[in-house]
């Protein structure tokens, strides 16, 4: 049978052991917290905005510089740190190179915009942009992302009958992209029905899609084949994307359901 002193020693040892574990856990958590703070710095570029189809061969990205005079930074005694430069990260969200990341180093700390040029062969590809601020104390602040894309799209004038609206297209034309796509754009009214008609050649290799403007992804009311009638779920610009071959495309409206 264990003596009372031995019981006391065991209890004491258990207490010390628990204390040591708690201290180690606290230090580990504090270390993680510091590391996490360095990764997710409170001072980061904000209001990142990338253009959505406003230019044919480029995307313009703008942002607001990180606020280094924030209360949190001053508390940490880091108000004297300097912004060294920006880095821009571009991730491909659609197309054959989906997931590919491109990094632009060394954007001057005094600027808050960058023009991503040379996208003539990558029109209609959706990109996600993040801006990273690099500071003199080796910390970084990464912005929230925004999507953008470049595109060449001709306006379509719609008619109440298909005969009033007919546009010739040719995916082999000079303005078509490397993967043989062309786009037309039109303004849709929420709740209205539209019919996209495409006379294509050769029929087996051509297709038509309806894309929403902001995300350049198939609109919720996406059409899978030419001639189908869809109802616009929101008001705003829509793209008709045609791939392969050549022919004519027209869009007519039928009004509210």
């Amino acid at each position, binding site marked *: 049978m264990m003596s009372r002193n031995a019981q006391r020693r065991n209890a004491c040892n258990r207490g010390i052991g628990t204390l040591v574990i708690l201290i180690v856990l606290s230090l580990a958590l504090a270390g993680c917290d510091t590391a996490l703070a360095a990764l997710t710095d409170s001072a980061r570029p904000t209001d990142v905005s990338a253009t959505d189809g406003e230019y044919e061969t480029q995307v313009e990205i703008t942002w607001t510089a990180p606020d280094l005079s924030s209360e949190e930074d001053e508390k940490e005694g880091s108000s004297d740190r300097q912004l060294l430069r920006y880095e821009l990260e571009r991730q491909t969200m659609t197309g054959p190179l989906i997931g590919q990341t491109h990094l632009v180093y060394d954007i001057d700390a005094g600027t808050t915009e960058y023009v991503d040029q040379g996208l003539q062969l990558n029109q209609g590809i959706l990109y996600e942009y993040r801006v990273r601020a690099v500071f003199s104390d080796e910390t970084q602040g990464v912005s929230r992302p925004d999507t953008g894309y470049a595109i060449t799209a001709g306006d379509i004038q719609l008619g109440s009958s298909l005969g009033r609206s007919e546009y010739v297209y040719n995916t082999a034309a000079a303005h078509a992209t490397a993967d043989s796509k062309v786009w037309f754009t039109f*303004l849709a009214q929420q*709740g209205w029905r539209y019919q996209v008609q495409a006379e294509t050649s050769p029929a087996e290799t051509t297709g038509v899609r309806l894309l929403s403007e902001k995300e350049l992804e198939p609109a919720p009311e996406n059409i899978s084949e030419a001639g189908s009638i869809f109802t616009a779920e929101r008001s705003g610009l829509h793209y008709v994307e045609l791939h392969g071959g050549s022919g004519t495309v027209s869009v007519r409206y039928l009004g509210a359901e």
Partner: protein
Amino acid sequence: MDRRLVLIGALTVVTALGAAAQTAGGLFLAGEVGIGIETDDLVDGSALGGSLGYRFPGGLLLVGSYLFAGTDFYYFEADSGWQQAPSWSEVPSGGSRRGDWIFYRQRHVVGMSAGLSGRVGPVGVFGTGGLMLNVVSLSDAEDYYPEFTEAAEESSIAGGRTLTTTTVRAGLVYPARGSFAGTLSWMVNFDRIADAATPSYFQRNSLVVIGVSIQAGGGGRG
């Protein structure tokens, strides 16, 4: 501080402002709401805007004004084609909110007029005449829906986007000598003189305008 000194100081400031407001010349600004007697092509049931004017010695007035004269909504039906709705509530919008509706036109009135002003006791009176440029602007849908554009232009002023008309206006200002004053006036916008003999011509082309003016240049209104 002695209350009497404060009172004397306040009275001196008020008197000085009053004296300043009685000087002959002056720039004034006015915010105005126009209420149509009867809706017509130029001005809807109501209009909102303002005036910027100058009163020369002798009571001569020169006034530039702008009124936002309303929004008209259009819709399409397979049976009847494009129609102008009497009001937003009568648009078969299918649940779309007003801000999401892409088929509309807006009316603007920009004017320049000259006239005379005077005072009858504490009340100022004025009368002006001049030219009004009536402008219709279509929504972005005009780039994509040519049939909507045709319909909106056909039913608009003189079948186009702009129309120059003559206008006369007469009104009252109270108080006539204040730096701030209320205004009440009657404005007739003569759109098509050939229609002047029609019974409702004046009702259709008249606006009652209520406004608040501020003397910005130190002169009095009269």
